[in-house]
């Protein structure tokens, strides 16, 4: 909210405190100053000028040539306004000034052959009014050379303060002044009210009845008769304008003024439009319609608190008045409403109606139930001052069950323990007193206080500790430099994923983070997604059930900028329903931690040492295996063919009979959906399952002391024979001397015969305890060849 320092100084002495100091200390104490607007800044290099001479411009009929004095010297100024005349005191902007209305910086210019050193300004040019008929003529008593800001009274400083939701009490100038006074140790006071009420009694003219006293604990109705609705006086308009409010008429302006003065929202009803001159506070009938001040028809709910007269609704309580009872130019008699409404009731209604007003904003945060009467009187006084009329004596103060003063206390040693710093007892008591707490009792151990009605956020000891600490100053509490660290077990639940990331980096993959929210069409293609109740847009209405769409979208984005060779990975959560029921527990859905890796384009593009090599299926498979070997070294895994609609060539990974991941070549139809026209190889690993695998225990094995013997062999066999079957067969046919089989060449050619291929394998033999003899190797080797020849109808390739 905006705070005008001129306005503020009505309640607290702010003299001698620099704006920098105000911003610094107030911000640190919890009322963050986000912006400082110095009105005077707009009028730099502008002064009160005396027009010494004004004659016709020799070369232009509509222009005048003037001599303007700024208190020191004379300036030639060309002026286009018809009303300029010698002897006037005017708003004179010198060379270098910036005109507020258009931001132009004045320079020395030649107009129709005559020099002009500055400008005589209109109200509109100065940004202080609408008048553009002619120049602004100032009070003749002003001395030339006075700064224009001072002359116009535009030297206010307005600060924009961000008020946290707990501090409803600071949403007014008086509330802000109270904190200010406590922080700077200044005196603070409420303005005095003198009412001069008439003999007639309010209660004879208007009646107030509270039906729902839980939602409306207090309602004050104050009557002023015979007012004249007109423009507000200058001082009032200026105050409202300084904080960015548009003046409307005297009565409405007064209610707004009191709202920003003390934080109590008021409403002024045209008493003559209140049937039976009566206010009834009760809940609406479900489905009832009501037209609010903004001319919109609202449908009400039975939980909405309404202000009614004897016959109809006249306002949505605490939110917005109705068109049917608003103050108009014809209004003569008014009823001022000053009430305390239940915060959560107002919040529900305002939220349901999608309406947030200055009033509802304050009511839902909690207003001061002790200020209602004062605020009504203050408004009556100001209305009488600005609109005339008579204030009826007394007021209808419906307050069926007054609130008790809430009490709490704070132990001095607890303050020290929480803060780690000792604040003197006298200081603690003085801060609480300054903030408006009533000191009920102080002994050596604690201070007991009564909580003022405007502090709904204070209830417990810890709340008082915060008040003391923030006003005392957080920066006076030292920053401890040595901390003690517990020797408790150290856990890092993120370390597994970190290892995966490191491995993928070393394999050349870039990490991506994609949106977890998808549109329904995409989301439903990839799983059984969960819908967001209040999405930002239909493009982001469902939680991703799979990591694949994010990857495909990422590839698609890059293809659009001609980046075609990509290796991406993402680690993230997917979300899937388990059933059609509404989610009512964590058992109704799966949230899974996943890794997706994706390859597309070329792994190598022609270089001087190598030829183009596109990424292929075997790159993907090898990468998956590399990841496993890194995070679960020595743990056995199984890669098998699989079926999944997302992949054309599909394989899955399992460890200890649990499927951990699936992937392959991404399905062509999906690629098209994302506008991708090149193959993508992708694999998705369920990290929760992978993490659950107990890693093989690492045991050192003696280094081999005896030589290894290698034998190469190549078989010609049918193309359809799978290599893993051949390898499996070799393992079975050989003795335990064979330790490693490496497939080092696959070759297809007509020379081998139609439908044939050659598989070349290197076999590694050794024994850990001795050197092998030629004979035993030869025996194994023979068995292997025989078995493969027999089982696969293979032929040993000539060598």
């Amino acid at each position, binding site marked *: 909210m905006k705070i005008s320092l001129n306005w503020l100084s009505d309640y607290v002495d702010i003299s001698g405190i620099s704006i920098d100091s105000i911003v610094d200390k107030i911000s640190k104490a919890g009322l*963050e100053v986000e912006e400082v607007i110095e009105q005077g800044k707009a009028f730099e290099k502008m002064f009160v000028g005396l027009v010494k001479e004004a004659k016709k411009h020799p070369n232009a009929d509509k222009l005048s040539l003037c001599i303007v004095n700024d208190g020191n010297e004379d300036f030639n100024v060309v002026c286009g306004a018809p009303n300029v005349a010698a002897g006037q005191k005017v708003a004179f902007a010198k060379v270098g000034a910036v005109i507020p209305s258009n931001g132009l910086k004045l320079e020395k210019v030649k107009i129709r052959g005559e020099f002009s050193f500055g400008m005589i300004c209109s109200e509109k040019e100065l940004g202080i009014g609408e008048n553009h008929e002619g120049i602004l003529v100032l009070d003749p008593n002003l001395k030339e050379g006075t700064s224009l800001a001072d002359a116009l009274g535009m030297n206010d400083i307005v600060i924009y303060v961000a008020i946290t939701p707990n501090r409803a009490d600071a949403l007014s100038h008086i509330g802000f002044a109270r904190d200010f006074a406590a922080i700077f140790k200044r005196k603070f006071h409420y303005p005095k009210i003198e009412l001069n009420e008439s003999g007639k009694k309010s209660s004879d003219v208007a009646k107030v009845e509270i039906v729902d006293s839980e939602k409306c604990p207090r309602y004050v109705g104050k009557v002023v008769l015979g007012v004249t609705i007109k423009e507000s006086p200058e001082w009032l308009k200026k105050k409202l304008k300084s904080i960015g409010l548009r003046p409307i008429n005297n009565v409405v302006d007064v209610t707004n003024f009191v709202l920003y003065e003390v934080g109590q929202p008021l409403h002024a009803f045209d008493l003559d439009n209140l049937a039976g001159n009566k206010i009834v506070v009760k809940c609406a009938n479900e489905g009832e319609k009501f037209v609010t001040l903004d001319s919109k028809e609202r449908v009400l709910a039975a939980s909405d608190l309404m202000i009614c007269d004897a016959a109809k609704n006249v306002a949505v309580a605490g939110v917005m008045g109705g068109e049917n009872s608003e103050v108009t130019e014809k209004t003569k008699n008014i009823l001022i409403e000053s009430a305390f409404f239940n915060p959560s009731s107002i919040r529900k209604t305002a939220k349901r109606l999608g309406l947030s007003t200055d009033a509802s904003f304050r009511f839902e945060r909690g207003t001061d139930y002790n200020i209602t009467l004062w605020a009504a009187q203050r408004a009556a006084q100001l209305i009488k001052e600005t609109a005339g009329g008579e204030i009826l004596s007394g007021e209808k103060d419906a307050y069926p069950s007054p609130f008790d003063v809430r009490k709490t206390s704070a132990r001095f040693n607890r303050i020290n323990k929480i803060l780690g710093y000792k604040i003197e007892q006298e200081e603690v008591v003085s801060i609480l007193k300054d903030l408006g707490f009533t000191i009920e009792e102080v002994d050596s151990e604690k201070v007991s206080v009564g909580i003022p009605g405007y502090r709904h956020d204070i209830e417990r000891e810890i709340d008082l500790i915060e008040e003391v600490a923030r006003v005392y100053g957080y920066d006076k509490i030292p920053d401890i430099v040595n901390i003690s660290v517990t020797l408790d077990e150290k856990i890092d639940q993120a370390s597994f994923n970190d290892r995966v990331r490191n491995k993928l980096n070393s394999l050349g993959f870039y990490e991506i983070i994609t949106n977890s929210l998808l549109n329904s069409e995409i989301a439903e293609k990839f799983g059984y997604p969960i819908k967001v109740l209040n999405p930002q847009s239909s493009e982001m209405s469902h939680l991703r059930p799979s990591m694949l769409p994010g990857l495909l979208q990422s590839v698609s984005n890059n293809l659009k900028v001609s980046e075609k060779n990509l290796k991406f990975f993402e680690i993230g959560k997917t979300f899937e329903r388990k059933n059609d029921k509404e989610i009512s527990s*964590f058992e109704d859905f799966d949230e899974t931690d996943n890794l997706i890796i994706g390859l597309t384009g070329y792994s190598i593009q022609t270089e001087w040492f190598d030829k183009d090599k596109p990424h292929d299926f075997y790159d993907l498979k090898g990468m998956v295996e590399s990841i496993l070997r890194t995070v679960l070294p020595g743990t056995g895994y199984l890669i098998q063919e699989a079926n999944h609609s997302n992949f054309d060539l599909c394989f899955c990974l399992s460890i200890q009979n649990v499927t951990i991941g699936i992937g392959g070549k991404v399905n062509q139809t999906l690629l098209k959906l994302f506008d991708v026209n090149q193959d993508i190889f992708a694999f998705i690993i369920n990290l929760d399952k992978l993490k659950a695998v107990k890693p093989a225990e690492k045991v050192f094995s003696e280094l081999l002391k005896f030589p290894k013997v290698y034998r190469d062999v190549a078989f010609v066999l049918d193309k359809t024979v799978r290599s893993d079957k051949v390898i499996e067969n070799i393992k079975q046919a050989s003795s335990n001397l064979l330790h490693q089989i490496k497939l080092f060449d696959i070759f297809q050619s007509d020379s081998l015969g139609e439908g044939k291929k050659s598989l070349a394998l290197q076999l590694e033999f050794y024994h850990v305890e001795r050197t092998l003899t030629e004979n035993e190797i030869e025996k194994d080797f023979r068995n292997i060849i025989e078995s493969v020849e027999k089982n696969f109808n293979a032929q040993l390739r000539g060598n």
Partner: protein
Amino acid sequence: MLSKISETRKLFEEDLSKVNDLKSLEELRLKYLSRKGIVPQLFDDFKNVSKDEKKNVGLALNELKIFTQNQFDSIKEKFDSLSKSSNDSELDISLPGRQYQIGSKHLITQTIDEIKEIFKGLGFSVYEGPELESDYNNFGALNFPDDHPARDMQDTFFINKNFLLRTHTSPVQVRLMEQKKPPIRALMPGKVFRNEAISAKSYCLFHQIEGLVVDTDITFAELKGTLVGFVKQFFGQDVVYRFRASFFPFTEPSAEMDIWWQPKGKEGRWLEILGCGMVDPNVLINVGIDPEKYIGYAFGMGIERPAMRKYGIDDIRILFDSDIRFLRQF
């Protein structure tokens, strides 16, 4: 026989001295050392040597064999290294080296890692939690009353009345304290969601890192000291900072920490970097920890904004677009 051996040695030395290229070296090898060369032949002749001579001749023969082989090897080595260096000189070292592909962690991950590193040094453990959370864990347990404006501070994506996408990492605090009794020193990084329109300034998701310490003698002064230590390590020792009183339902007293940000050629300003405070007693009660016995502090910060500021990125969307031209830069 013995004279033949010494004769051979003399001849070998003569021939050796004449070797001046690889070709003559090979001729030398063929002549003396190959299977049919002079030295192996002498070994063949050895069969015919009489018993008496065998010992002496055998020694001499072996000596000859070792001598010739060593001489040959040493001269061959000389030629080999010569020929190699002549090959090296044909290399064009200006040719580009073979480029091995590199990847990188996402800028956000890198920033989280950097922060994690600092706090791990201060004895913090790292915990994670789910993103789809219960309303209770995200709000209720953290002392956000129902129907309170405090809930407006965080625009929320709801799944239904009781489930939502977590708006902060703080529910991980709740989960942790429900499971583990103090002492607790925990750091909780993760993804969070806010129901905001996507623009250069805001995105529907971002990352946070949260800290929680609960023990018997924890103080506000220690919280301040720890965070000052952190910002000095993260932003540099000469960072200018301030603590400002603030409001979070789950801490009291609460503060925000600002650092003074001075972009080149622009006006400096205070920049909010984290929120913190002493764990509200209501939160401790909600998770079954006695607030009279234990005191806690907590802090939380966004990752995207400091990372963007550090590298001069002014549009948050680029972080989530996976543009390889962006990713390659980090």
